[in-house]
């Protein structure tokens, strides 16, 4: 029984982190329609920005986190302006954009390893993740609670933004049909830039939280990205609510999977889940 609640808790915690990755990924996919494989490296950028500010320079952690999130957002915005928007203007194919994003990913990850070494760093000071609480017979750290709540808060915030504002309307218009959106006078280039900022900022936030929970490494991006992408696809690509649902499903399946098989197989388990979905339910849980 205790194992069961612990597995569920672990699944929810992992899911919350993946949900943050999926939110940003899906938001960006919705307006650009390409697999932005560089999305993961923004989590690493967020994590390292925070690391530099709060751990190395001793800035207040809330301020450090806020700036770290903004740095990730700006980096994502910069990648869009420098690379993707140029390619989009040329009507480059999805595959060209995908390969370019692989290039961005690789370059940024290499830059992080050169600047910060490839070593593993922890963000939390003191005992790992703060004090442990017991919840429904399982154990959860404070950091993990923060992860769960901020993930839900980000989703609600993003939903409110998309529902309630002119910006949200513009985003939805572009997601439906970019040509039409442009014809009715929406500055699609600018809105896409903002979307990159927001999506990347959320990824940066995920990176900081992941850093508190386990730690950061320049190569952390690929793992987080893949989880985000898989969550998005099994949830319904381009549908942000579906992505969150997919993330929690993925977190649970992974954690229940490793109940019986060793933990090192986690990544393989998640890809098997993806492939099963693509074969039997390619549109995901929630259709766009």
């Amino acid at each position, binding site marked *: 029984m205790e194992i069961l609640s612990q597995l569920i808790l672990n699944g929810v915690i992992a899911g919350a982190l993946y949900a943050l990755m999926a939110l940003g990924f899906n938001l960006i996919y919705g307006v650009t329609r390409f*697999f932005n494989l560089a999305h993961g490296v923004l989590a690493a950028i967020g994590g390292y920005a925070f690391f530099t500010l709060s751990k190395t320079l001793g800035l207040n952690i809330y301020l450090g986190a806020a700036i770290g999130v903004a740095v990730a957002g700006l980096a994502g915005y910069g990648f869009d302006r420098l*690379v993707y928007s*140029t390619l989009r203007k040329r009507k480059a194919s999805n595959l060209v954009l995908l390969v*370019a994003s692989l290039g961005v990913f690789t370059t940024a990850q*290499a830059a992080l*390893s050169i600047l910060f070494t490839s070593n593993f760093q922890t963000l939390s000071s003191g005992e790992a993740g703060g004090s442990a609480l017991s919840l429904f017979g399982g154990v959860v750290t404070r950091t993990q609670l923060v992860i769960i709540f901020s993930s839900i808060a980000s989703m609600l915030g993003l939903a409110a933004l998309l529902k309630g504002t002119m910006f949200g309307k513009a985003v939805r218009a572009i997601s439906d049909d970019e040509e039409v959106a442009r014809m009715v006078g929406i500055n699609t280039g600018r809105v896409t830039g903002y979307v990159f900022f927001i999506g990347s900022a959320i990824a940066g936030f995920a990176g900081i939280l992941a850093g508190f929970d386990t730690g950061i490494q320049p190569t952390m991006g690929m793992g987080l990205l893949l989880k985000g992408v898989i969550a998005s696809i099994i949830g319904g690509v381009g549908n942000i609510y579906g992505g969150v649902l997919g993330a929690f499903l993925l977190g649970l399946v992974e954690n229940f999977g490793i109940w019986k098989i060793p933990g090192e197989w986690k*990544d393989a388990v998640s890809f*098997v889940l993806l492939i099963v979905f*693509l*074969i039997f339910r390619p549109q995901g849980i929630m259709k766009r």
Partner: protein
Amino acid sequence: MDYILHLAILVIIYAILGLSLNLVVGYTGLLASGHAAFYGIGAYATAILTASLGVNFFVSMAAGIIASAGAAFLIGAVLSRFDGDYYALVSLGFNVIIYSVFLNWQGLTRGPLGIPGVPRPALFGIEFSSGVFFLALAAFFLALSFLAARFVARSSFGRVLKSIREDEKAIQVFGYNTVYFKLAIFVISAGMAAVAGSLLSSYITFVDPSSFTVMESVFILAIIIFGGLSSLKGSVVGALVLVLLPEALRFAGFPQSLAAQMRQGVYGLFLIALMLYRPQGLFGEFKL
């Protein structure tokens, strides 16, 4: 001198990988992003058979080709359902899965410890243990791979592959069951990659999972995109440039400890620049 021999052998191994991957990406237009998996199967086949069981190198290579082609047959059967960016993602997923197998099937691969003591090839009492002999052997296999790739590319089969790349539905209407063609080229390509893997493990005399990550697959992709899609000459030139360039950086005074990161950074930038300025690469005739 040893250093030059070493680089030459590496160039040859990557040229074989490039040639084989180009058949799938350049000719057939499928963005296969998991080539390192098949490279790894060849490498492990040789390591396990020669180091642990004392089998002759050439027999182990044949076994590697068969194992890799067999794995490609199963994986390809799933992959053939996809195209475009989903193909890229799912093939990358299979790389992650196979990598997990290398890492976690301790009984067979010794996991992260790797397999040491892989002998150099020997045939009829001739040992290819010295650098020069090994180079000659590797060059022989490169020539063989080049001829095989050219044979495929110039056949009617090769023309059908290109038409699949251009418009799969249209060529189907003219009577080709394209699933079989895609599967066949995937299997051929995987078999060729296994040759490169066998050479690698016997040359380094050691094999561990870290050589067969997704990043390695991205590196091979960078080679063929740089050299030119659907250009066999381009694959060889691409391997030459992308393997040697980071070495040149080292001579320019960058520290040895950063070599791996520099290499990554360089080919990441190459990918971005190519997508922006020359998506068909150096000698390519096909744009993604």
